[in-house]
């Protein structure tokens, strides 16, 4: 049985990050696509390297070197947990190969273990990427002994365990509940979103220091941050202490806790694996349809309806792309509840928060547009659209419309909340509506442009497109980046020129959007296979 399990693990790891396809594909386009994706990842890794390295350096300059390991462990664990919630359920209970594997003489446990190991390896890479630059900077400036490096390596290896367990339990519970429901995808989406919202609201309230930071507190900042980390995620302090030489008890405690929780979870998932999978993948057919009166729609209308149905059929697609609009609405509600003056006072910046609200709103609303992966999401069914008599424009318009209609209700509520909260003048009201509208339109259209460049129709699981593709990385944040970029000049612009500046920004964004839209529609979808 061990041999079979090892073979299964090898199989799971063979195509991790698409390595096997890249190695063996003879399709130059696919090879180029993977190379480009590799560069995008490399770029993101470099950014993360500099960010984490810079953070560590900053902490050293503030005489807070001792909290670096705990801080890094905290960041890595949070990232692993956040990513894990989205993917754990669908990775462990994946329908892919389930039938063929179930018919082979392999135990359920082997299937579960192999899938866990794949998730662990992916998490380990992320943990390494987050922690290595920080530890390197720490090592370069602090020069700890050899044991610290050895322990750092051990910590990196074990850091993914608890986040993996926690996210899998949540993923398994969500998947398990959904499996019992008739509307599995909808239940899964609502539960995942609900959980993320609880986390978001929880983290907002956790970050606040009651009554602001006093001078006395600044002197003792390192201890305060450590306490904050310890309160939020105690294992980060246990492991961090082991690296800085404060004793191995924490590390041992972590190993015992994570090891036993991991084994317990493995036991339960293995026990209920078949049952959950059976319920999850079973399809109900009533077989009682009687012809009813059918109604026709316009070509664009029918394409749009299809996009809507496609969108809501995928839990991971919905949860990944609806977070921005939800966060935007929550932000607007928070501003209304707290009051714009209080927000201004607490942030303590030399310019009016009110003036930047349109850009902030746009930045949040444009995180992860649906358009940036909507072409890739067609997958193996792309032949249908390609063989039908519809123009590229109609197809892409339906995808943009779908994204806009998803954002629209949230945007409307946000606008109303902000209007009540800020009581803008007529001109400010115009910009509060026009600037986010221009940037949201831009984000939807550039999402299509990016997806046309990084189109991947041959994916195994939806999460590879929605969460791990170059398209989602670049297209998903393009709107937010532009929102920040166009907001920057207003920090320096004299008050007299602000209205002109806003008009020029709107005009520029609308023009670039129109140009992108024109070029997108000229593409031949036959070129995408």
């Amino acid at each position, binding site marked *: 049985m061990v041999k079979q399990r090892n073979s299964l693990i090898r199989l799971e790891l063979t195509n991790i990050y698409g390595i096997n396809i890249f190695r063996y*594909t*003879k*399709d*130059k*386009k696919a*090879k180029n696509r993977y190379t480009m994706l590799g560069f995008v990842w490399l770029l993101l890794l470099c950014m993360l390297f500099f960010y984490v390295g810079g953070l560590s350096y900053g902490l050293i300059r503030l005489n807070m070197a001792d909290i670096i390991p705990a801080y890094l462990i905290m960041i890595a664990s949070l990232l692993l947990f956040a990513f894990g919630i989205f993917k754990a359920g669908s990775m462990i209970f994946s329908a892919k190969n389930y039938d063929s594997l179930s018919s082979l003489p392999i135990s359920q446990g082997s299937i579960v273990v192999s899938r866990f190991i794949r998730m662990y390896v992916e998490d380990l890479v992320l943990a390494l990427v987050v922690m290595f630059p920080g530890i390197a900077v720490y090592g370069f400036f602090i020069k700890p002994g050899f044991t610290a490096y050895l322990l750092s390596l051990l910590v990196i290896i074990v850091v993914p365990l608890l986040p993996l367990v926690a996210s899998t339990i949540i993923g398994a519970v969500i998947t398990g509940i959904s499996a019992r429901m008739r509307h599995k995808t909808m239940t899964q989406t609502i539960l995942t979103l609900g959980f993320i919202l609880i986390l978001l609201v929880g983290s907002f309230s956790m970050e606040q220091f009651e009554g602001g930071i006093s001078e006395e507190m600044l002197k003792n900042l390192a201890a305060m941050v450590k306490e904050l980390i310890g309160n939020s995620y105690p294992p980060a302090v246990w492991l961090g202490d082991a690296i800085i030489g404060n004793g191995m008890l924490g590390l041992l405690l972590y190993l015992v806790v994570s090891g036993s929780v991991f084994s317990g979870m493995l036991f339960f998932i293995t026990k209920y694996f078949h049952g959950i999978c059976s319920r999850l993948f079973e*399809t*109900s*057919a*009533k*077989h*009682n*349809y*009687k*012809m009813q*009166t*059918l*109604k*026709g*729609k*316009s*070509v664009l*209308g*029918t*394409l749009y*309806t*299809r996009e809507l*149905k*496609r969108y809501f*059929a995928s839990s991971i697609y919905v949860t990944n792309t609806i977070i921005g609009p939800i966060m935007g609405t929550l932000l607007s509600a928070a501003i209304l509840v707290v009051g714009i003056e209080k927000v201004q006072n607490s942030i303590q910046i030399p310019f009016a928060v009110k003036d930047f609200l349109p850009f902030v709103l746009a930045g949040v609303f444009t995180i992860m547009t649906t358009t940036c992966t909507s072409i890739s999401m067609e*997958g*193996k*069914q792309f*032949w*249908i659209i*390609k*063989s*039908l*008599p*519809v*123009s590229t424009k109609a197809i892409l318009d339906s995808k943009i419309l779908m994204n806009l209609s998803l954002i629209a209700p949230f945007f409307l509520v946000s606008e109303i909340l902000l209007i009540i909260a800020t009581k803008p003048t007529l001109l400010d009201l115009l910009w509060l509506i026009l600037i986010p509208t221009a940037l949201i339109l831009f984000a939807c259209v550039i999402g299509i442009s990016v997806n046309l460049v990084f189109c991947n129709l041959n994916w195994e699981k939806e999460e590879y497109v929605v969460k791990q593709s170059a398209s989602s990385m670049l297209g998903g944040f393009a709107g937010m980046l532009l929102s920040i970029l166009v907001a920057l000049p207003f920090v320096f612009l004299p008050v007299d020129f602000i209205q002109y500046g806003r008009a020029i920004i709107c005009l520029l964004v609308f023009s670039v959007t129109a140009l992108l839209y024109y070029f997108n529609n000229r593409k*031949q979808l*036959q*070129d995408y*296979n």
Partner: protein
Amino acid sequence: MLQIEHLTKHYKGSKKGVTDLSLYVAPGDLYAFIGHNGAGKTTTLKAVAGIHDFEAGEIKVHGISMKENPIACKKSFAYIPDNPDLYEYLTGIQYLNFIADIFEVSAQIRQEKIQTYADAFEITASLGDLISSYSHGMKQKLAIISALIHEPKLLILDEPFVGLDPKAAVTLKTMMKEICEKGGAVFFSTHVLEVAEKLCNKVAIIKEGSLVVSGDMKEVVKNGESLESIFMEVAVNGQTKE
């Protein structure tokens, strides 16, 4: 009806594809397209259906160029692939309605057509179910119905009989014949040589991306030979049929 002239399509980094392929499907033709796995049948059919672009040559449907006016071209035919990956998140009736909308079929006509074809293929009761619950054969039937809704003059089918139950296969053959009798045409690939021989008036054999035989079935299969023996001669043993 369908004119393929010097079609050349190769996949980058691969030797597979089609080279300088020309054939003509006339109104009334039931045209079988046969060849080994990987010979280039699906590539040809996908290029004709406008799914693949191609490097050289010309494809015309009713005289309209696929390269110059793909939308007008696609309005006049229907294509069914060998493995019908349909939108699993739609119900059968939603899918058929979607296709009817795209081809701008009136509500009354689509209803009549769907009723007729769904009854003929015995899947009316399943039309309200999600496509994800369908078997391979049911998906194939749904794909066939969707192809027939807008009464295409030309049907392009890739392995249409795979997965169909015997009754559905007979129904499909009858429908193919009816289309041809009404002046339409059917161009389809198959590995079932007996079906091709009995059903079709024309045949083309493709080998390693090139057409090795094409013409009237009666002229290709003569002197008491079978299509199978001809196929073995030209496609396996490499002899060229004059």
